[in-house]
C-alpha cells in the first residue's frame, strides 16, 4: 500500500500544479469535473491484473513510473519535421505537440458553414457553450481509472463540431506528436467530436513519436453521432516502442446513426485500445474494425465494449492480429445487450496470425444479454502462415519475403477492405503495407522454417 500512496503522491503534485494554472480552472463546472475525476482516480488507483477488464494487461510499469506533465513546450518542432507524417487529401490537419494544440503547424482550409475544427483549450478559453453540455457527459470515469485520470487533466485536444446536415467529404486529420523526453512525461489528450443530425464526416487520430523517451499518452475521445449521421473514426497508433499508449473512444450513437471505428495498432510498447460504443437510439449501425501488428516485446490490448441500449441496432466487430517476436496481443470483446434492445444483431470475429513460437494472443468474448430476441455470434481463430500457401506462391517464382508479405497483406487486407475508399483508407493502406514489409523482411532472417498447419483455438 505504501507504494500505491507514493505513486498517487506524484499525481497529486501534478494535479495541484495543474489546477492552479489550467485553462478554464475558474469555470465551476470544469473545475468540478476535474476534481471529481481526480478524486475517483485516487479512490481506485491503477487497475491490476486481478481486475477482470485488465486480466491480460499489466500496467505496473505505468504505475511505478513517476510521470510529469510537460511544462511549457520545450521542443521546437518545425513543419519540415512533420512532413513525412502528414497525410494526403485532408480537409483539415490539427497538430498537437506533447498534447498541446499548435496552430502554426496546423492547417485548416476553407470549411463549410456550420463546421468548427479547433483546439479544445481555445474553446475552453472562449467559453464555447457546447463544452459544458458535452464534455465528460458520456465518458465513464467510474469504471476506468485512465478515463478518470484523463478527465482530471483534460485541457487540450481536438474540438470538432459539424452542424446539422453538413457533409465533410475530406477527412480531418489529428496528428498527436510526442517529442523526445528526458524524464518520463504524461499527456492526456481530450477530444470532443460532436456531429449533429444527418451530418457526415471522417476523423483520424494519428499518434506518432519524434524522438524516443518514456511517454504515457492517455487519450480520451468522446464522439457524439447525432441522428442519422454517418461518421467514420480512425485510430492510428505508430508511436515509438518505449511509448505507453492508452486510448479510449467513447461513441454515443443516436437514432439511425451509422458509425465505423477503424483501429490500426502498429507502434507503441504497451498499448491499450478501448472502444466503447453505445447504441442509444433505434436502428443504429456500428462497425468496429481493427488490425494490430506486434513485434519485439510489444503488448497490444484491444478492449471492446459494445453496448446495445436500443432495439433494432446492429454491431459488427472484426479484429485481426499479426504477432511476431515476443509480442503479446489481446482481444477482449464485450457485448452488452440491454433489456429493451430487442432485435439486436451483434457479431464479433477475431482472427490472429502468430508468426513466432513466442508470440502470444489472448482472445476473450464476453456476452451479456438481457433481452430475449437477439442474434449474437462470436468467433476467434489463431493460426500461422500456412506452409502450403507459402510454397504455392514460391513455386510460381515469387521470392520468400515477397510471398510472406503477400500473405500478410491478404490477412491485413480483410481489415483494410472494410474501410471506405478515400484518402483515409489510402493513408491506412500505405502505413500497413510499409509495416508488413518490415515484418516480412525481419521474419525471413529470424525464422527460416515454420511448422505446417494452422493451430486453432476457438473461444
Amino acid at each position, binding site marked *: 500500500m505504501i507504494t500505491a500512496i507514493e505513486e498517487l503522491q506524484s499525481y497529486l503534485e501534478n494535479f495541484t500544479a495543474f489546477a492552479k494554472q489550467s485553462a478554464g480552472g475558474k469555470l465551476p463546472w470544469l473545475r468540478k469535473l476535474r476534481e471529481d475525476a481526480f478524486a475517483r482516480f485516487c479512490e481506485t488507483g491503477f487497475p491490476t491484473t486481478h481486475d477482470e477488464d485488465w486480466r491480460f494487461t499489466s500496467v505496473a510499469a505505468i504505475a511505478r513510473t513517476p510521470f510529469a506533465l510537460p511544462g511549457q513546450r520545450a521542443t521546437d518542432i518545425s513543419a519540415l519535421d512533420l512532413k513525412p507524417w502528414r497525410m494526403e487529401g485532408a480537409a483539415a490537419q490539427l497538430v498537437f505537440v506533447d498534447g498541446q494544440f499548435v496552430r502554426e503547424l496546423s492547417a485548416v482550409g476553407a470549411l463549410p458553414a456550420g463546421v468548427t475544427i479547433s483546439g479544445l483549450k481555445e474553446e475552453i478559453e472562449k467559453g464555447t457553450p457546447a463544452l459544458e453540455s458535452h464534455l465528460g457527459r458520456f465518458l465513464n470515469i467510474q469504471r476506468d481509472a485512465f478515463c478518470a485520470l484523463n478527465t482530471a487533466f483534460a485541457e487540450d485536444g481536438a474540438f470538432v463540431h459539424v452542424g446539422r446536415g453538413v457533409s465533410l467529404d475530406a477527412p480531418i486529420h489529428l496528428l498527436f506528436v510526442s517529442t523526445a523526453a528526458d524524464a518520463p512525461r504524461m499527456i492526456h489528450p481530450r477530444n470532443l467530436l460532436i456531429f449533429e443530425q444527418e451530418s457526415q464526416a471522417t476523423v483520424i487520430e494519428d499518434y506518432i513519436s519524434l524522438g524516443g523517451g518514456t511517454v504515457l499518452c492517455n487519450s480520451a475521445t468522446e464522439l457524439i453521432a447525432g441522428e442519422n449521421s454517418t461518421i467514420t473514426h480512425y485510430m492510428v497508433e505508430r508511436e515509438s516502442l518505449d511509448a505507453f499508449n492508452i486510448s479510449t473512444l467513447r461513441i454515443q450513437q443516436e437514432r439511425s446513426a451509422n458509425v465505423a471505428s477503424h483501429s490500426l495498432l502498429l507502434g507503441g510498447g504497451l498499448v491499450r485500445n478501448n472502444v466503447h460504443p453505445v447504441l442509444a437510439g433505434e436502428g443504429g449501425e456500428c462497425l468496429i474494425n481493427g488490425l494490430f501488428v506486434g513485434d519485439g516485446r510489444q503488448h497490444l490490448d484491444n478492449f471492446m465494449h459494445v453496448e446495445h441500449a436500443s432495439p433494432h441496432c446492429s454491431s459488427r466487430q472484426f479484429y485481426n492480429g499479426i504477432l511476431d517476436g515476443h509480442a503479446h496481443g489481446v482481444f477482449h470483446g464485450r457485448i452488452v445487450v440491454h433489456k429493451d434492445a430487442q432485435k439486436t444483431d451483434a457479431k464479433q470475429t477475431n482472427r490472429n496470425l502468430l508468426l513466432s513460437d513466442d508470440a502470444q494472443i489472448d482472445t476473450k468474448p464476453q456476452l451479456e444479454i438481457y433481452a430475449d430476441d437477439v442474434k449474437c455470434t462470436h468467433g476467434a481463430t489463431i493460426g500461422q502462415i*500456412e*506452409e*502450403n*500457401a507459402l*510454397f*504455392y*506462391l*514460391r*513455386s*510460381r*517464382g*515469387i*521470392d*520468400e519475403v*515477397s*510471398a510472406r508479405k*503477400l*500473405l500478410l*497483406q*491478404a*490477412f491485413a*487486407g*480483410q481489415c483494410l477492405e472494410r474501410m471506405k475508399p478515400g484518402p483515409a483508407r489510402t493513408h491506412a493502406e500505405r502505413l500497413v503495407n510499409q509495416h508488413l514489409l518490415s515484418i516480412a523482411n525481419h521474419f525471413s532472417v529470424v525464422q527460416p*522454417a515454420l511448422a*505446417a498447419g494452422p493451430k486453432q483455438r476457438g473461444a
Partner: protein
Amino acid sequence: MSLLEIKNLHATVAGHEILKGVDLTINAAEVHSIMGPNGSGKSTLAQVLSRRETYQVTAGEVLFKGKDLLAMKPEEAACEGVFLAFQYPVEIPGIGNAYFLRSALNAMRKYRNEDEIDAIDFLPMYREKLKLLEMDERLMSRSVNEGFSGGEKKRNEILQMAVLEPKLAILDETDSGLDIDALRIVAKGVNAMRSPERAMLVVTHYQRLLNYIATDYVHVLVDGRIVRSGGPELALELEEKGYGWIEAEARQTAPASV
C-alpha cells in the same frame, strides 16, 4: 544437353525414405509419364523437382538445363522454368487470381532481367488464356482458388502454366477427380502448350489421361524406383493388368534391403 537429368535420386520425408534411386533423363519436346501405385513416390518426385523444402534429398543429382536444380530454392527453380501443376491447388483468400499471376510473371521477368508487365498489357493475354481453358472471366478478380470446384482448380493450374510458359511442366495427378468434360478441357490446354522447347512430366495414377495427352515415354515407379520404362503401350498394359504384377516383379529383382 538434356533438359532434365535425374541421377540416383534419393529423398526422405520425415525420416522415411521415399525415393530410393531414381534415374530419368528428359529432353526438350518430349512428354514423359510417370505411373505407379499409391505411395510409390510419384508425387514426392514432383515435389522434389519443384524444390519443396519438406522433402530432404539424401543422395543423387538433378541437373536442369545443366544447372544444379537441388541447389535452387522453389522460386529459383520456377524462374528457371520448372512448373508444378499441383495435385491439390491451394486456396489463398485475399489475393486475387489476376494479381497473383501477374506478380508471378513479373517475378520471372525480373529474374530474366526483362521489364515488368503492367496490368493493361497483362489482361488481354490473361483473357485469351481464360478462353483457352473455358474459364469464366469473373474468376480473375476472385481470390486464388477460393471457392473453386475441383475442376476449376485444375484448369486454373493449367491456365497459370499457359501464362508462365515453363520449360518443364510437371503435372501432378492433374486428371484425378476430373469428369470427362473437364479432362478434355485440361488436355486441350496442355496440348496447346506442347512445343519443341518444352518438356512435360505427367504424373498419373490412371492411363485415362494418356488418351488425351500423347506421351512419348511411360515410366513405372514402384517403391521409389523406376522399375520399367517403355512407350505408350506400357500404359495400356498397366490399365489392363493393374499394378500387381509389376510390383511382384519389382520385389523379386530389388536388391535385398539393408
